[in-house]
């Protein structure tokens, strides 16, 4: 209850978040190591902002989103929602936080229970939070469905009666039903047909304007991120390597990994000559990350210091935060 209602308290603060998955081997399933899926991630998201987490598959961006919502237990670190501790909350406090923080999943086919009508699935959530029941609940369900571009009668339908795009609308409606302030959008469009993707993106933006939502937008599609995001965080091997305002980031990415990612975006004008940075080798295993900078095994500008000293995420004059020895030389 002591949440200071000041505008500059970030909606979400993540501090040094870690998620290690134990690797068990042998008959006794002894822990022989850890996959460091998320390894010390720190960022803030301001009210009404869309913060995009980008990176290739397996870099830990989805795990970060899930750990924030406690869908998977974090190994270490802190998460604050409007100054309120999320990872330590329990009971009634946690229920209230759950209401405020929702998630939209990547695959709309597995995100809906095949045995429940859309109406009963959303109605159950409303009932658990004692927001509405009976006729009131039905009204609320129909209201959010219509708000998400569906029809009121769709609440009597089962998930298999919808197309992929419609299902994703249902998933969004379900997240919206609890009237949340913060939504983790975990690759919400990457499982959809290209023709549907823009519709869902527009819906998400429209909802953000109407309800002052704050998004953590997880994606590997940099052109979508360019459209959606206000700020961008680049993850590599469980670590944030660069955080910047969108404009800054697309104008001048500072981390060599960000530069390589951006150079991979296709350009619609075939006459434009573009320098492509092709990375050599594979992403190292997060079970056995390289010492020093996690990117040094593939970095075209690797220096000796990179192999031993892990770079810290430090701010530059332009407001960029970068973890790279090239930008912040070790003294």
């Amino acid at each position: 209850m002591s949440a200071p209602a000041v505008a500059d308290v970030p909606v979400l603060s993540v501090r040094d978040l870690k998620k290690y998955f134990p690797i068990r081997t042998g008959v006794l399933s002894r822990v022989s190591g850890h996959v460091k899926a998320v390894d010390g991630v720190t960022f803030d998201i301001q009210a009404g902002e869309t913060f995009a987490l980008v990176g290739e598959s397996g870099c830990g961006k989805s795990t970060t989103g899930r750990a924030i919502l406690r869908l998977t237990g974090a190994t270490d670190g802190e998460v604050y929602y409007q100054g309120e501790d999320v990872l330590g909350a329990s009971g009634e406090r946690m229920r209230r936080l759950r209401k405020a923080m929702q998630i939209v999943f990547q695959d709309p086919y597995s995100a809906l229970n095949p045995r429940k009508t859309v109406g009963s699935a959303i109605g159950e959530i409303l009932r658990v939070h004692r927001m509405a029941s009976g006729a009131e609940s039905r009204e609320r369900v129909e209201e959010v469905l219509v708000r998400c571009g569906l029809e009121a009668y769709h609440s009597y339908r089962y998930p298999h009666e919808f197309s992929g795009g419609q299902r994703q609308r249902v998933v969004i409606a379900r997240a919206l039903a609890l009237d949340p302030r913060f939504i983790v959008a975990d690759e919400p469009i990457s499982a959809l047909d290209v023709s549907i993707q823009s519709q869902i993106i527009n819906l998400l933006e429209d909802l953000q304007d109407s309800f002052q939502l704050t998004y953590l937008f997880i994606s590997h599609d940099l052109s979508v991120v360019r459209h959606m995001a206000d700020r961008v965080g680049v993850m590599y091997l469980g670590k944030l390597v660069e955080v910047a305002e969108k404009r800054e980031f697309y104008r001048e990415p500072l981390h060599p990994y960000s530069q390589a990612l951006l150079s991979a975006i296709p350009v619609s004008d075939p006459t434009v000559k573009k320098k492509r940075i092709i990375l050599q080798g594979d992403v190292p295993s997060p079970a056995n990350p390289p010492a020093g900078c996690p990117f040094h095994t593939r970095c075209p500008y690797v220096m000796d210091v990179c192999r031993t000293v892990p770079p810290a995420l430090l701010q530059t004059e332009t407001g960029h935060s970068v973890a790279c020895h090239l930008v912040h030389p070790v003294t």
Partner: protein
Amino acid sequence: MRNVDLTAEGMPRKKTSELREVFRHLVRNRAAVVGLTIIGLFVVVSVFAPVFATHDPLAANLGNRLQPPSREHLLGTDELGRDLLSRMFYGGRISLNIGIISVLIGVLIGVPIGAVSGYFGGKLDIITQRFIDIMIAFPGILLAIVVVTVLGVGVENVMIATGIASVPIYARLVRGSVLSIKEQSYVAAARAAGLGDVRIIFRQILPNCLAPIIVQSTFQIATSILWAAGLGFLGLGAQAPTPEWGAILSNGRAYIRTAHHLTTYPGLAILLMVLGFNLVGDGLRDALDPKTRS
């Protein structure tokens, strides 16, 4: 496999109660209706056994033993000259009860154990599963013998014993299903929405495990009847003069060369009943699944 229902497209659908919908679909399924009829017949015949029976099922007539089917004894007589048909009518009461009650016991105990074990995982799962391993290592009939020995001889205890003997089967089956279903995003969504573990297990996960449970149960009814017969054969189940299909079957085994009707008809009765439950089970599985229903 998505079928586009053109007529229903854009048309608001009336909300009907789930139960009525399931029933409506079940009676439209011809195989399920056949199954329901078979089970219904068995139930009626068992309940009204005194009406249908032409003879006293316990009245022995040694001068008339091992007679083949005739007008007087429609299905022949057994080794003590008792009327087989009458004995089977009365036996149905016990066998139906054994089949249904033991499956109920198995489901009511085994399903929650498997669900909790699979859902929570970790140490609880390891301990539970090692325990289930031990139970599975014994053949079901042996397990039932152990339980009957502990509880004492009697038809009720046979039901409990065969039920307990089927617990590990359900526990293992449900655990497997739960393990795969709990990784689905809708379970994560339920958790993100603040639903409690109990609600998630019973309202989100278990309804999606119904298909294997139903299929297993229809088979388990037959298995339980046969286990009960085995127990009766060992003198642990239904006692000597009490008619029970399994017992009739195993007694008749000694005369299979000279009087095959003693094994053929009880065997057929068990087969028919299992078939009935199977058909209903299949129909129920489809009727409960919204995907096949539409």
